[in-house]
């Protein structure tokens, strides 16, 4: 029983049903039912052609469901009037499915859930578990999302920009439970990168790979965070780094810069440094300048202040920080860091304790508390 194969085939089969005239919601339901049947039937009787099997069963499920509807005649007429399978326009079904699931009419949370189910082939239960909500809640979110995109034509051209944003959200969620959302986001982005030459898809894939490479060193066994400068770099995954750098370089060569390429470039410069002290902070500041120009994001400006502090000294970093809004998330933590670097542990300790109060995750809060505790312990001795 090859679950990975089933999940890879999911979007393809939905796409084929779509081409045959099924609307998206009905196609998606039918394929989910076919998947359930595959899980039951395949272990005893593995099909020679898994994809053909799924298409046949899903199509039958679709017809059954359509016939069961009260508006039976109307629907069957419509289905029969649709163009035959394999219509003349050569559009990639899976790519269309990405566009549909990230349709601008959907909220980010709905787009994420729909993408994981229709493109990723995850079950509602798995998605619910990954996002720590009850299964019925996730089922409602998905069915509402499907209703929202009901009127969207399957062949409608979509925006890669909205798709990469959805994949970025999935990656950033990390993982809790049996589904590794970061790994799933990488799989879906890889698949997307094979279908479109868009530089930002490549940029996002490179960014994900370069960050995923650090995961073994990022968290201690007790769950606490290890800051980048203190990570054991021998535990970084060099294979993922090499792949990320290759993908990034190919994207940058097209000279169509975007925010994900810029972020990946920063990650690549960190990956390049064998020890933290050899980091090329001057180049990193230049990339943050690009990122600020591309996004005008306050978060990018905040991270730029940290980089300036490393490249030009903590006073320069504090000066860059002074231009930003102190209400920004992580502002106080950055201020604490720069004050410590500038040789003011009293202020740094006070700011770290203050930053811990406004942290948005337990791991971050504990990390900041530990920093305050470390400085206060030094100050007492």
């Amino acid at each position, binding site marked *: 029983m090859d679950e990975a194969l089933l999940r890879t085939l999911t979007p393809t089969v939905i796409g084929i049903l779509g081409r045959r005239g099924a609307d998206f919601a009905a196609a998606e339901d039918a394929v989910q039912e076919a998947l359930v049947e595959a899980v039951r039937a395949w272990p005893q009787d593995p099909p020679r052609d898994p994809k053909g099997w799924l298409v046949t069963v899903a199509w039958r499920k679709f017809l059954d469901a359509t016939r069961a509807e009260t508006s039976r005649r109307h629907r069957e007429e419509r289905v029969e009037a649709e163009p035959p399978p394999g219509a003349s326009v050569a559009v990639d079904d899976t790519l269309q499915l990405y566009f549909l699931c990230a349709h601008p009419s959907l909220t980010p949370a709905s787009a994420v859930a729909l993408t994981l189910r229709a493109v990723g082939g995850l079950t509602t239960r798995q998605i619910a578990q990954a996002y720590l909500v009850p299964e019925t809640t996730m089922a409602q979110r998905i069915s509402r999302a499907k209703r929202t995109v009901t009127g969207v034509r399957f062949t409608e051209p979509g925006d890669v920009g909205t798709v990469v944003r959805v994949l970025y959200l999935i990656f950033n969620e990390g993982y809790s439970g049996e589904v590794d959302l970061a790994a799933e986001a990488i799989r879906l982005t890889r698949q997307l990168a094979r279908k479109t030459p868009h530089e930002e898809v490549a940029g996002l894939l490179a960014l994900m790979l370069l960050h995923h490479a650090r995961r073994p060193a990022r968290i201690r066994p*007790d*769950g*606490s965070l290890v800051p980048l400068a203190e990570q054991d770099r021998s535990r970084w995954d060099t294979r993922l780094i090499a792949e990320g750098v290759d993908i990034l370089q190919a994207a940058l060569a097209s000279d169509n810069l975007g925010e994900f390429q810029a972020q990946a470039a920063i990650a690549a410069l960190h990956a390049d440094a064998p020890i933290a002290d050899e980091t090329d902070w001057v180049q990193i500041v230049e990339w943050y300048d690009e990122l600020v120009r591309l996004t005008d994001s306050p978060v990018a400006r905040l991270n730029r202040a940290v980089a300036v502090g490393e490249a030009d000294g903590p006073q320069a970093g504090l000066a860059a920080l002074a231009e930003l809004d102190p209400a920004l998330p992580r502002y106080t933590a950055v201020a604490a860091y720069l004050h410590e670097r500038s040789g003011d542990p009293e202020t740094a*300790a006070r700011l*770290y*304790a203050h930053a*811990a*109060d*406004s*942290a*948005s995750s*337990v791991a971050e*809060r*504990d990390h900041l*508390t*530990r920093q*305050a*505790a*470390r400085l*206060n*312990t030094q100050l007492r001795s």
Partner: protein
Amino acid sequence: MAKYLLLKHYRGAPAATNDVPMDQWTPDEVSAHMQFMQDFADRLQTTGEYVDSQALSPEGTFVRYDGEGRPPVTDGPFAETKDLIAGWMVIDVESYERALELASELSAAPAAGGKPLGEWLELRPFMSQPPTITE
């Protein structure tokens, strides 16, 4: 089985017996505390008594309806004296005595100087379903 909520307070509970703010502990003491909390939850999972636990941000707001077509009224954050919940753990246990025992263990999490924190935890029984057989 009966469900209980263990409430941890940032403020509003009586002072802990070992009442030193965490940023004044040593980093090792902080780590030992975190490890204890983790181990405690893990152990309750293996005994089949764990339901849920969550930590809350200290910043909160009171909100209320303010009439048709008007935006909600908000109030807060509140003065330092106000009761403030830091987080909770829900347990499902055989008896009230077992709930007390677990709350007491959790309250003894190591703190400054490696000594038990001795913080006050609030123990609240869940309302249950009415029994099917009543006579």
